[in-house]
């Protein structure tokens, strides 16, 4: 138990901050994912064949390629790409992006592909009549989206989004390969310096279980809230 003590003698506080880091990366990645979903869901639903193709390419490629490969692409290719863009604007210094940003961006793009599929499914399962009714009532396009489509879509999407959240949370363990100190990386460091990998990796597993368990509790509450009246 002294291995988990807070302060200089144990790894308690380090692991606590690492857990917060995992949460921070997951939330950031999820939000970046929503942003991507916001762009690609309309493309996937669009009637234009070309836009449709772009949307399908995004979800197919990202969901068909291992997460680790995407992370390596961002980790090794990220700063190169930024430096290339910067060189166009006449900035030639070396730019290093921090691991948090590359990590959450990589996980965010992956999570976005799953969110896109969820939103597409949710919008498609809204009754056609709802769209027609709001059109007949002369409601403007953006108000129709916020007041008619969005509330119904969220209700249908929340159960599946909770799966996306779980996937995202578990995917963040992969960013440990880039050196960002989240649960996995901290356990790796602790296991290395105490030569007790069994304890620390098992403890990491417990932390992840705790995170998934608590977030499920929270999401269930949200689900109840959004399905009022059904």
């Amino acid at each position, binding site marked *: 138990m002294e291995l988990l003590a807070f302060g200089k003698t144990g790894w308690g506080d380090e692991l606590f901050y690492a857990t917060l880091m995992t949460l921070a990366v997951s939330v950031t990645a999820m939000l970046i994912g929503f942003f991507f979903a916001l762009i690609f869901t309309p493309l996937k639903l669009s009637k234009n064949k070309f836009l449709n193709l772009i949307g399908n390419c995004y979800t197919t490629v990202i969901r068909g390629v291992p997460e680790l490969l995407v992370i390596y692409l961002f980790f090794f290719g990220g700063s190169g790409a930024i430096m290339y863009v910067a060189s166009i604007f006449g900035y030639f210094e070396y730019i290093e992006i921090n691991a948090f940003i590359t990590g959450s961006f990589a996980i965010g793009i992956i999570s976005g592909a799953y969110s896109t599929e969820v939103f597409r499914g949710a919008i498609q399962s809204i009754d056609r009549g709802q769209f027609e009714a709001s059109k007949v009532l002369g409601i403007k396009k953006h108000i129709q989206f916020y007041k008619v489509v969005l509330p119904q879509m969220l209700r249908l999407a929340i159960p599946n989004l909770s799966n996306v959240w779980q996937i995202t949370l578990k995917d963040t363990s992969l960013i440990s390969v880039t050196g960002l100190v989240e649960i996995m990386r901290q356990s*790796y460091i602790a296991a290395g310096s105490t030569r007790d990998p069994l304890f620390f990796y098992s403890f*990491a597993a417990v932390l992840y279980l705790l995170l998934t368990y608590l977030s499920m509790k929270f999401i269930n509450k949200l689900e109840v809230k959004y399905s009022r009246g059904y």
Partner: protein
Amino acid sequence: MINSFPKLLSATLITLKLLSASLFFGLFIGLLFAILRMNKNPIINKFAYGYSYVFRGTPLLVQIFIIYFGLGQIEYLRSTMLWVILKEPYWCAIIAFALNTGAYTSEILRSAFQTIKPGFIEAGKSLGISNKIIFYKIQIPIAIRQSLPAYGNEIILMLKGTSLASTVTLMDLTGVAKYIISTTFKPIEVFIVAGSIYLFMTFLVHSTIKYLERKFSY
């Protein structure tokens, strides 16, 4: 880009070996735990539920690390025959993958078994067919058909999961891709080649499952 292709292709072989071995063992584990989940004894039932909850609630990376780095720490294990298997990263990866996919497979199979209409089983019983034969000839074929779409997704998830073998020094497709990226600093080209190989495999799995679904539909 072209130079890296043969190396990546030979690494694909290791990925495929890992995938097929873990799916093979995972299917047995999944079937076993699905049957345990449907057991009426609450202790057995809870045990099976706990197994699938733990393996589905933690990242695959943690599971591999516990098995590869963690189990070697137990002195007792080092002296048994098991150590011959557990000191190899290849087998550790397969054990972790099989246990992980086993947990998901057990959930898929369980829900497939539960969606079988009770009428089918009752019909079998009223015809005087023994419970064993009802299970093998009625429940299993229907469950296979029911679980095909979900199991196809699981195969694709597992295919992507095998990439984690590269974290325990195995040179699978992702491992070799990373090695080439870190020596040549051409991340995008290597990503395109390795990614296409993965996509091609995903596509093959997807179309095979679609074909089987059509074949087994009733």
